[in-house]
């Protein structure tokens, strides 16, 4: 393949990565923005979404599309419930103390990950794609499903943006993020907002995982990479900034995809990890975020 088409292929791969990454990172960003909590277990919610999706799809023996779309709806709900339980039982009791919650979410990471290892096992298992259609471009064939994922991600992003900026629920969330004490004084039940946001963040990660699982397989360790990448995106884009997250996810997803194709994936990760550490030290508000109050 000539360089041009190769670059196009790499770009498409990058877009796919970026699409999934945006959704995942958005979940992390929401949780930090509203609750000021760094959820290190976020990657495990992602992984859980994929594993539950596999489980649902294999239970429903009908056409793969039915199984898949059932999973797309049910899996996030299941993961959301798990997140909700974690928030109520653990995070709330710690009063959302920044350092304690990080330690607690690390514990949650191991609990979720190892429980999956115990029940689902160490193997990687595929979920069949809901539909199989190959788009024939002049230089190579490309799976239409991949494009579907990108479109679905965009649609979801728009939906989240709509909820945040145009609905009452979104207003409540933004108010809590901006100044939780005043929000409380205005009668907003911030405890419930926190529980909801934590669950919603997990659900976003789960959806991203369900979308990607027909392409990548479901494996108990698949949460670590998305966790680190999400961290990178959120910190560079600015914690709590929706626009920053999207732009950073695009940048990171594309560059990670392209560098991985042309160079080595390890090098790509090294560069982005180093970059985020330096950003956090020298420009902690990221590229778009505003300084935390």
């Amino acid at each position, binding site marked *: 393949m000539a360089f041009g088409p190769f670059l196009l292929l790499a770009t498409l791969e990058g877009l796919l990565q970026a699409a999934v990454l945006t959704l995942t990172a958005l979940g992390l960003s929401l949780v930090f923005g509203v609750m000021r909590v760094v959820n290190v277990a976020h990657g495990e919610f992602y992984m859980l979404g994929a594993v539950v999706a596999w489980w649902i799809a294999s239970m429903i023996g009908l056409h793969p599309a039915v199984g898949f779309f059932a999973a797309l709806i049910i899996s996030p709900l299941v993961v959301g419930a798990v997140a909700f339980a974690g928030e109520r039982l653990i995070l709330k009791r710690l009063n959302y103390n920044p350092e304690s919650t990080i330690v607690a979410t690390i*514990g949650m990471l191991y609990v979720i990950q190892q429980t999956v290892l115990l029940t689902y096992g160490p193997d990687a298992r595929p979920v069949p794609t809901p539909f199989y259609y190959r788009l024939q471009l002049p230089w190579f064939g490309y799976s239409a499903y991949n494009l579907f994922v990108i479109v679905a991600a965009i649609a979801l992003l728009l939906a989240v943006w709509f909820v945040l900026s145009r609905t009452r629920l979104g207003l409540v969330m933004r108010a809590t993020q901006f100044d939780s004490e005043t929000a409380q004084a205005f009668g907003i039940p911030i405890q419930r907002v926190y529980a909801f946001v934590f669950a919603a963040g997990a659900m976003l990660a789960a959806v991203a995982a369900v979308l990607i699982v027909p392409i990548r397989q479901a494996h108990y360790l698949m949460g670590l990479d998305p966790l680190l990448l999400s961290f990178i995106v959120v910190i560079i884009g600015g914690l709590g900034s929706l626009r920053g997250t999207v732009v950073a996810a695009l940048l990171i997803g594309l560059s990670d995809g392209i560098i991985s194709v042309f160079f080595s994936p390890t090098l790509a990760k090294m560069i982005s990890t180093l970059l985020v550490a330096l950003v956090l030290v020298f420009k902690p508000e990221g590229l778009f975020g505003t300084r935390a109050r």
Partner: protein
Amino acid sequence: MTNSHPVRVLALHVGVIVLLFLLQFVLPDYHHLAMTRVMVLAVYAMGYNMLFGYTGLLSLGHAMFFAAGLYGAGLTAYYTDWGVPLAFLIGIGCGFVLSLLIGLISLRTSGVAFMIVTMMFAQVAYLTTTYFTDYTRGEEGLTMPQSARSFDLLGLHVDLTDAGQRYNLALGMLALALLVIFLVVKGPIGRVLIAIRENEPRTLMLGYDTFRLKLMALVISGTISAMAGAAYALLFAYIGATFASIQYSIEALLFTLLGGAGTILGPLLGTMAMFYMIDITSEYTSAYLLVTGVALVLLVLYFPKGILGTIRERWWPWLP
């Protein structure tokens, strides 16, 4: 704490060392080796405690210091014939340099940002070891050659394949680390580090250069952890990328929390307890890290002072 009972304190610590020394004569082979490992890892945790327990800085990347010592000593022993003692010193030196660099950059942040920055730098360190797999063989790792399994020092011949000599070297290092930490923590510097932990703005306004002091704490902490890493490479003749992984950083936190952060013997106790807990669990299942997870959650929810921390608060306030 106003230091009373210096006799009790001295007796306790000397007693622990003596007990460990005597233990080697009664332990069956498996536990003999296990305890050697525990002692080395305890030094790692003790280094971590210096920064976390006493200065109040939670690092999520301490594995990079352990790995610096591990690889510094291990690669030297593997690729050169400079001998074990020099390899050991090089390992410590690597840890010193790395902790100085990391400290200069990351100490501009604090709290959550510091945790994330250290985690990120550690991840870069881990990726570096797998990137240069030509030299390090990444996850697979390297086994030390025969030439690195013994050395001569001051007229003595030391054989590192002998379990007894290994045990006593580890014990010696533990005793050294205990001494160093004890001197730092109990002296005027230790008092100021605790002050920084308790109330940094106040400490700054008492005329202390808190940045320099935190840097010093981090360098001491990182160097001690690197010493443990160097010892591990040379005593157990193996280096591998897993030791630089984030899991290892979390273990340092876990051992310290469990045993009691801010106590001198806490890390030793925590390492021992956790080591055996994981050891026993892994006989039943490969998901032994589940224990790690549950332990972390329970500790942080109900038991944040750890074993010795709680004992100190409730019954023995003289415990350092």
